[in-house]
């Protein structure tokens, strides 16, 4: 079966140990996650976990069914039809004078921003689609990446639809 990349949104109880239950299930069933983010939602009793991963239809179906069996999980949805996806990255690059203007041009074009600056290095914040983040990393590679971290994908469906309809 064909392998696709997809994003799943999961509403879970906002309680201690919930993330462990979700990730333990992934390990137990031999599913591999690309990214996983978790945070508070519009309802304080729930957290929203956004998982991006790759797999065929079998993996997708099993994953959703196994997630639904967890008692801490309130709602599971595959975000179909190209949802709005965003990721944030902080990246620290070498601040060599011969590359400075190239870096600043890239920052400008990618609508990124320099959030820390010293004579040895600068820290840049980039937000966007994961593919945009990937492109920015590629661009920075020749200049010397010192350190970086990515949040992983967060995603919402387009339009006024929400996961909870009640």
């Amino acid at each position, binding site marked *: 079966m064909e392998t696709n990349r997809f994003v799943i949104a999961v509403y879970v109880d906002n309680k201690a140990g919930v993330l*462990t239950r979700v990730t333990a299930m992934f390990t137990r069933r031999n599913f591999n996650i690309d990214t996983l983010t978790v945070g508070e939602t519009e309802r304080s009793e729930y957290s929203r976990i956004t998982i991006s991963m790759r797999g065929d239809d079998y993996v997708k179906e099993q994953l959703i*069914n196994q997630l639904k069996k967890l008692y801490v999980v309130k709602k599971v949805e595959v975000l179909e039809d190209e949802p709005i996806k965003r990721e944030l990255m902080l990246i620290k690059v070498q601040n060599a004078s011969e590359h400075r203007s190239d870096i600043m041009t890239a920052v400008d074009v990618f609508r990124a921003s320099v959030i820390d600056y010293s004579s040895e290095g600068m820290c840049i914040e980039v937000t966007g689609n994961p593919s945009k983040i990937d492109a920015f990393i590629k661009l920075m590679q020749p200049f010397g990446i010192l350190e970086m971290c990515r949040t992983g994908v967060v995603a919402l469906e387009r339009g006024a639809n929400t996961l909870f309809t009640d």
Partner: protein
Amino acid sequence: MKLNGAQILIQTLIEQGVTDVFGYPGGQVINIYDALYEYKDKINHVLTAHEQGAAHAADGYSRATGKVGVCIATSGPGATNLVTGIATAMLDSIPMVAITGNVPCSLIGKDSFQEIDITGVTLPITKHNYFVNKIEDLADTLREAFAIAKSGRPGPVLVDIPKDVQVAKYDFEPQSVVEKMPLPKVKEDLIDKAVELINGAQKPYIYVGGGAAGLGMGSDIVAFAEKIGAVIGCSFMGLSSVPQDNERFLGMQGMHGHYASSMSQNEADLILGIGVRFSDRATGNVAKFAKQSKIIQLDPDSAEVNKNVRVDLGLVGDVEDSFKRIAAKCAESAKPDWFARVKQLKAEEVQFEAEIAEANDAPLTPKQVFEIINAEKPANTVIATDVGQHQMWTAQYVEFDGPRRFVSSGGLGTMGFGLGAAIGSYVATKDPVVLITGDGSFGMNLNELATAVSYKIPVVIVLMNNGVLGMVRQWQTLFFGKRYSNTVLSRKTDFVALAKSFGAEGVLAETPVEFKRAFAAAVKAGKPTVIDVRIDKDEMVLPMLPPGGAISDIITKV
């Protein structure tokens, strides 16, 4: 009324209809045991020899009745000793609530004496689990644990209660027994689709699993098979849920299943699965399983549909309701050709079984042992087993007395399960109980003989003693060039003397006459009896599908 946490725990168990619990005391459950002492006229505690025995007893209690089994253990090693028992219940979807004590909240996370993160340990082997850190949550958490354990696809739930919560005081008001959460009813158009597939089939095979056990659908399934001209087979876990005394029932299929059952499943053009999960032991190589057949699967668990095999139609929800609606709508059809073909397969099965029996000149064969058990066992006997060759022979030969009369570890295949489970089933039912075990399995948890003697549990233990780990030896014979690595036990254990030293009866049986006499006497004796039954070390379980093989690779003789 204001009670302490331990009292609230026991009061909630009583409120939920629990009359018996199995367990073992320890430092972090002293308060719970103090409350058990207080309420001993309302709740019976069975002290096992080991916490693993308590977990298996709670499991056996549940399998024999359908009620939620309850076990109690202290923190640390007490809790980890439950693990195999909880996993056994998980793999076979057995409702169980396991209660563990833990160190006080102030000592949690400090590697305190006998502290273990048991909710972490049991995360993948429970349906759900709880660490209760507030007294005000205790009673409702326990109620939720019971609801989860018995609802939908049942399973084990663990509740870990730290010592300070057992001591703290809080208001308690008894409530009613929690109801099972209702299962969704399958939509009518899906029922119609199933009916259409069944009406269009020429060679239907009804495949019954553990999900049908205890639903009391057995005679309805037989009537339905007669109506649509189908035959019936079952998975290991489905045994005892369908009456065996009718010619449409072919018995267990799969790795050590009946030849006619496996073969006809392979030739069927429609398989109607009722509460089966198509385990690897049942299907062999899934790529070659039932290739020309349409498959309909009825299950309460949506994750079971399309998990192990791709099905044409999955009906997720109330299995009994789905089955009844399908059965009512299907057209009558005799399908004599299909039944004739199945009868031919059955005749082949009888033929090669007779050949195997004839070629066996051992003084006492497994087949003879089971013929005697079938003839001599009292009505309504619970048959418990351990795991190995004796278990598969039980599955092949025993004529079960009805639903919930077969107590055996299917999914996890837990050696050492049987004795604890037999004790639990007797505590639950007071019906006659026979444990069929082997010298390997029995050696794992024979300490529970002490429990059987203390509580006067009249379990008849048929110990099929061949001096080897027979099932692994069989694989070594067939697939590893007879390299018998660590499967020859050569132990000097005298099981007759061992039984007597525990205060049980012990008797040796080396011939059919001796075994018949010993078994009949044990049934009459009304006390735990070990019958040391000597069988040959090279007895095999046949037929056998080689691991990863297809039905066409079936081995019927060696």
